[in-house]
């Protein structure tokens, strides 16, 4: 299944009922050099839109929201040791957490790649 996107510049890749979540390449370019990442621990329940992770650049701290409701099954601990991975490979190795979805119908509210590209174009 192809990626889905949120207006908060997160991407979601679904595999069965587990969604891998990261921030988009556009988001990392806007943030600048990432110097600190905090990812959630496995077992935490999150609702759609809840604070789930933290990403900080030299200048500012930002929250990463849970794009969908569910239970965290894994945080990408490698980012805590190597936060620059978010800049280098936001779409793949820079993923933040994996989420076991509570309600797959929430996915319908997200954008596909073309819609997200249009959304970003509007911002520039």
């Amino acid at each position, binding site marked *: 299944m192809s990626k889905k996107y949120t207006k*908060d*510049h*997160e991407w979601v890749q679904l595999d069965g009922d587990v969604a891998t979540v990261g*921030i988009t390449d556009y*988001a990392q370019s*806007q*943030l*600048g*050099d990432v*110097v*600190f990442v*905090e990812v959630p621990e496995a077992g935490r329940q999150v609702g759609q839109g809840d604070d789930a992770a*933290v*990403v*900080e*650049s*030299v*200048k*500012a*701290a*930002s*929250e*990463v*929201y849970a794009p969908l409701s569910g239970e965290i099954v894994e945080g990408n601990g490698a980012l*805590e040791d190597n936060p620059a991975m978010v800049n280098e490979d936001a779409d793949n190795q820079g993923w933040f957490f994996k989420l076991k979805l509570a309600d797959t119908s929430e996915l319908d509210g997200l954008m596909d790649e073309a819609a997200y590209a249009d959304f970003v174009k509007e*911002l520039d």
Partner: protein
Amino acid sequence: MPQISQVQATEEGELRNQSRRATWSRKSLEPQNPIKRTPLYDLHLELGGKIVPFAGYEMPVQYPLGVMGEHLHTRAKAGLFDVSHMGQAKLTAEGKDAAAVFESLVPGGIETLQEGRMRYTQLTNETGGIRDDLMATRFGDTLWLVVNAACKEDDFAHISSALEGQAALEIADRALLALQGPAAGEVLAQLMPASTDLVFMQAAWANWSLPDSGQSVDVLISRCGYTGEDGFELSIAPEHADILARTLLAHADVEPIGLGARDSLRLEAGLCLYGHDIDLTTSPAEADLLWSVPKRRRAQANFPGAETLNQHIENGVTKKRVGILPEGRAPAREGTQIESLDGEPLGQITSGGFGPTLGGPLAMGYVPAAFSLPDTQIHLIVRGKALPARVAAMPFVPQNYRKG
């Protein structure tokens, strides 16, 4: 992830501070001025600068190199900063020494400045708080002042009215460029040989031949800055700022640097940002700036708030500005609560972030005097969690000034 707004946190903080400051100002009911641009605005756009509102100006927060790259480049070679938004003015006291007259407004040793020498000082209020911090340079019987952008209108009105009948303040419509970093001396020596005679906190008027027309224009070269590195501030007529910036940027060692790296550089150097680390609620003693207040001025006690400042010196202060190093990797930003290990509230972080040269998080903030010694263990409350940190001596990275 609302990074589109969050990434401008510093600017919003600045705007928040301006509105807070507006309540201190008698002129707060006057309409806000429209946003202004410096003479280098078009160059910032051409260089790919990301423009944000700052202190009433549209300023570059970063260029394509990014905050981290710009910071590290400045420490390694040389960075060029547009600081034209700052206020510049000349103080003249007919038949008298303007430096002596100016001492009635600041606790610094200004009258004792030698020709072409400059000092850092503060405009204080009657309760010992800091209205602004500034640089003052002596040329003959006149004084050249450089003040913060966000405070300049209030400062100039205050100085003019407080010294009415004794001194005249002439606001200078000039651009200001800062060239900072270990290569700054070598870069500027090629353009303005007079710069090689200057040591840290020394200034001179020089002539520079414009590279296009050969016309000779005056430049005030001051060997000072806001990064902890060797470097210069160059004051030039606004119509020549663009050619000067382009000439400096043509040097392989020079990159343009935005406000983001300016903030991380000054924080590593332990330098205060007005409206954040110092304001009307902090005295120079509380702000750990007594090195800028000589014994003569303390004894004379003839500046605003002298009584409070002397009480702070004699009886000690209840709060003091200190450097803070978080022990983990998480930065603690402005407004973060500081607690003792027992959970007792101590104060707040006033500037905090990540130091690219330090390679980790760093901050400054206010704690009670009993907690102000280096290596005192404290907690920082970040996202609800108490993170271990310690009080640390500043600067966080060694200064690299040319002391001569």
